[in-house]
């Protein structure tokens, strides 16, 4: 088992009485790529600031390699940060921005030159050495910020939405490069994003957060296939979330119909959230189907069509399918028992 490098124990952070983080427990292993995922304001940046040492937890402990680091100032932590808003040094040019950390370590000029050069290659900013950072575009500034942190080869790198300002193509490239760097250099990444695709494709572990609390920790596959509650299900990919009642083990009622499912261990007649992925719904003829409705809209999304099917009881189903039925066609919807995900209602743990 690989060792834990950073651990948060019952960490809470209050700002003027309101909790930005509450009761966070998280273990980050060495060389792990951990992504914090959650909607705006859920406390992702706050978590990084606590690990970086820019804020102190209101309660709880933060351990680095098993030792409490509450009293270690940021400049002594073996952690570097890529800040959400870059925070570049406007009095220095691109080269000197990237070299900043190395100069402080009193590294000799030739070594600095070599390392900075390698970084410039990596972030595709060759030829920009002498440019004033204020004269760069947002995406270029972001890449300087990435290089400035990475060049120090920290044990843990905190990345606060480092790719947010890049266009899709460059973003893909940088995702790839960052992932490669992480593997090659053996750096532990704590990566913040609210792009779920990015989270799923890059991470070893995804931490889904909401309102300062962790909703679920798990591998991308786990988070996607076995979301722990309706919020996670909805946040990771789109979902249909329907009110249901658990009749008995492996049998749920929704919209007046009974459906076989694979979940067990609920109280009899417990109200639940039923989560169904849009791609798990199949269009059939309306004859004899348990779920019926009328196609209300069709959008072509490239790989598949996105359709909204309005059911008789008014519920709008989101359906992803490679086949298409025109608007106003009555259709039936079919699904397999294993595609019905039953979740306890929020607040009832």
């Amino acid at each position: 088992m690989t060792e834990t490098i950073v651990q948060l124990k019952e960490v809470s952070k209050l700002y003027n009485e309101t909790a930005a983080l509450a009761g966070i427990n998280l273990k980050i292993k060495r060389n792990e790529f951990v992504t914090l995922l959650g909607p705006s304001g859920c406390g992702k940046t706050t978590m990084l600031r606590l690990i970086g040492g820019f804020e102190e937890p209101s309660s709880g402990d933060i351990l680095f390699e098993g030792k409490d680091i509450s009293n270690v100032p940021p400049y002594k932590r073996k952690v570097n940060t890529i800040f959400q808003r870059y925070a570049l040094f406007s009095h220095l040019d691109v080269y000197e921005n990237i070299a900043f950390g190395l100069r402080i370590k009193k590294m000799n000029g030739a070594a600095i030159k070599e390392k900075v050069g390698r970084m410039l290659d990596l972030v595709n900013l060759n030829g920009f050495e002498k440019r004033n950072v204020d004269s760069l575009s947002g995406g270029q500034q972001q890449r300087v910020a990435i290089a400035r942190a990475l060049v120090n080869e920290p044990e843990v790198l905190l990345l606060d939405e480092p790719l947010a300002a890049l266009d899709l193509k460059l973003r893909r490239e940088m995702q790839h490069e960052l992932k490669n760097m992480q593997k090659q250099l053996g750096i532990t990444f704590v990566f913040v994003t609210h792009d779920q695709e990015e989270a799923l494709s890059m991470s070893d572990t995804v931490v889904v957060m909401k309102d300062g609390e962790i909703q679920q920790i798990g591998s991308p596959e786990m988070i996607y296939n076995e979301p722990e509650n309706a919020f996670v299900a909805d946040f990771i990919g789109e979902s249909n979330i329907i009110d249901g009642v658990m009749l008995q083990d492996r049998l749920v009622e929704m919209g007046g119909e009974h459906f076989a499912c694979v979940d067990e261990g609920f109280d009899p007649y417990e109200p639940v959230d039923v989560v169904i992925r849009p791609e798990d719904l199949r269009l059939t003829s309306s004859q004899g189907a348990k779920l019926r409705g009328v196609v209300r809209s069709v959008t072509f999304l490239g790989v598949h069509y996105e359709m909204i099917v309005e059911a008789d009881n008014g519920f709008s189903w989101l359906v992803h399918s490679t086949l298409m039925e025109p608007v106003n066609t009555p259709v039936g919807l079919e699904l397999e028992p294993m595609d019905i995900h039953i979740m306890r209602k929020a607040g009832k743990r």
Partner: protein
Amino acid sequence: MKRSSAMAPYLLWIVFFTVVPTLLVVYYGFTQSGPEGTHWSLSNFTRFFEPIYLRVLWRSVYLALISTSICLFLGYPAAMIMAGRAFTRKNALLLLFVVPMWMNFLLRTYAWLTLLERNGFINLILGYLRLPSLNILYTNSAVVLGMVYNFLPFMVLPIYSVLSKIDRRVLEAAQDLGANSWTVFWRVILPLSLPGVVSGITMVFMPALTTFVISRLLGGGQFTLIGNLIEQQFLVVGDWGFGSAISLVMMLLILLSMALMSFFEGDEREVSLW
């Protein structure tokens, strides 16, 4: 069309109150009027380079430099404390620096006169405490004190305004990259605040170099500065030509030092542009 007509009042103002007076000063400076009439001459300027006047110039520059340095060393930390995140009563302290400026400059300087007198307030207190009395009135020290007191806000305010605009996250980034407080100051805060320092130095050095009120009141008239010399030529001696010539030399000095300052200020930006 519209724009130029809107400019007209300002143009008139500039012509009447800047261009014409400057031309007059140039005229007086470069002419010599005697019984046989007025003629072009450089004699006003050559006269200024006599040792007695050069000594006045040197003393002015020297005292202005000292005052400016003291203002910088007192003002920078003050500005830093005020701009600091920990300091919550910023406005109160800022007011403390600004309020004296609302009072008449002469009054403030006169106040120092009574404070510093042989039997003045300060010596009274020192006497009570059985400390030796302080007799700096009518010395260079008193003049420097007066300058520092009067011009300190001009140093503090520009530095404060630059410092308070520095993004806290930039300082955090420096810490993140391994810089302790001391390094953060030398490598980030100080370079970023240089424009404020430059304008503070300019705003203190210029008035300190040309003041005649402070030196007359606190220097007792025996420590003539260049400002007093000019004032004398116009109001006492009536030698407008010599007075104008000194003014022109001063103007040249100020222009030169401003060019020097703006060179320092613009230095980094220009270099890094390419």
